[in-house]
């Protein structure tokens, strides 16, 4: 079958972004291979690890399970959109301060997922943080430091978004 490319219009990290993709390309492939936004990672490529987590229209999704063509008209946030010119986001800062990463491949997914939680629930319990992050796997840290970083970030942010 001829590979006909589709023209897709999105808002990506706050900016109008258009791209061409084939229908069999995942949003993850589009982000990394077409738009060269390589902060979003590929772990399993089948929905289990959460390394590819992005925020799409206010919900976190595994970008390996979204087709690039499905993103038409949507508003997407990737890890590249989390820090500002003023500095790191409090969640990123808390990951550094708590040594919540080792190899770092899971980190963008955890940060994008945690940010969505704190925007919805500014003061989650530790149990809630663990439940929310169950779709994100980490092979290095043992999770405790990640959970502590998210709770610390919630405290620093003091309920602010």
């Amino acid at each position, binding site marked *: 079958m001829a590979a006909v490319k589709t023209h897709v219009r999105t808002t990506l990290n706050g900016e109008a972004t258009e791209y061409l993709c084939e229908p069999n390309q995942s949003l993850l492939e589009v982000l990394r291979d077409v738009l060269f936004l390589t902060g979003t990672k590929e772990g399993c490529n089948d929905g289990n690890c959460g390394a590819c987590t992005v925020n799409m229209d206010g919900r976190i999704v595994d970008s390996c399970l979204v087709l690039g063509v499905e993103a*038409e008209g949507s508003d997407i946030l990737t890890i590249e959109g989390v820090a500002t010119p003023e500095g790191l986001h409090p969640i990123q800062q808390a990951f550094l301060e708590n040594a919540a990463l080792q190899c770092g491949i899971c980190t963008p997914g955890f940060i994008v997922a945690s940010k969505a939680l704190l925007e919805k629930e500014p003061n989650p319990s530790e149990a809630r943080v663990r439940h929310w992050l169950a779709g994100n796997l980490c092979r290095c840290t043992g999770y405790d430091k990640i959970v502590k970083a998210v709770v610390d970030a919630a405290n620093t942010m003091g309920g602010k978004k």
Partner: protein
Amino acid sequence: MRPIEYVAAKTVQEAVKSLAEKGDAARPLAGGTDIIVQLRGGRRQLDRLVDMKAIPELNELTYNASSGLRIGAAVPCYRVYGDAAVASAYPGLIDAASLIGGIQIQGRGSIGGNLCNAAPSGDTIPALIAHSAVAEIAGPGGNREVPVEDFCTAPGRTVLQSGEILVAIRVPAPAAHFGACYIRFIPRNEMDIAVVGVGASMVLDGNKVTACRIALASVAPIPVYATAAGAALVGKEATEENINAASEAAQAAATPISDMRGTAEYRTHLIGVLTRRALQSAIQRAKEA
């Protein structure tokens, strides 16, 4: 994934036509959390995916205390458990919708997709059966309805014929003193496939059971509606002895296999334990309702 054509249908008619044109080489796409994995893994080969998410009717979630619940086939799980009125009226369904995958999967994956994927382990299917849900189907030959217990025909296969789509799942309004529950056993807390799952619902008059439905996941090639197990309780008091009799009938309704998740014997044991727990929880909820 090999090249594929993507069609975002705007209406039910357009989806039906687009699917019927390609026969077995086309399938609907809802949240994609099953089908994208299957396509990428080579377990399915398709020429066309027809996206259901832009069809307004398939995105509607409507609830009315007298007419009941209608879940558009493409509505993702989070919208179902995120609706407070729906959550309190359909506790068994909410149990199931909130344990599919993790938050990322629930943001995309739909109950309609879970049903149409027809996995023996599909968590929402026993819950839908317990809640007496009905599948609304549209196709080239018109519309029809099928009770969810008759929807799955084999692993990955359903009653849907070429060009037919699931439009919505309708769940009747619960009677007074209705309670329901879905529980499953998995080796960890989240993100795994049910070794056994049990959905149960119940209507109580005082302590007497006036209606009861029990359905099972992961214990046969298709989800099992254990009619004899529910019937064992109807007209009886909700006592431990009667609950035990119903759970034994549930065990007898299953034909489990041994695989990497557990032996047939282990599964049979689990059906007993989980049926008792699901019934006790449904009874508790019926008393509070």
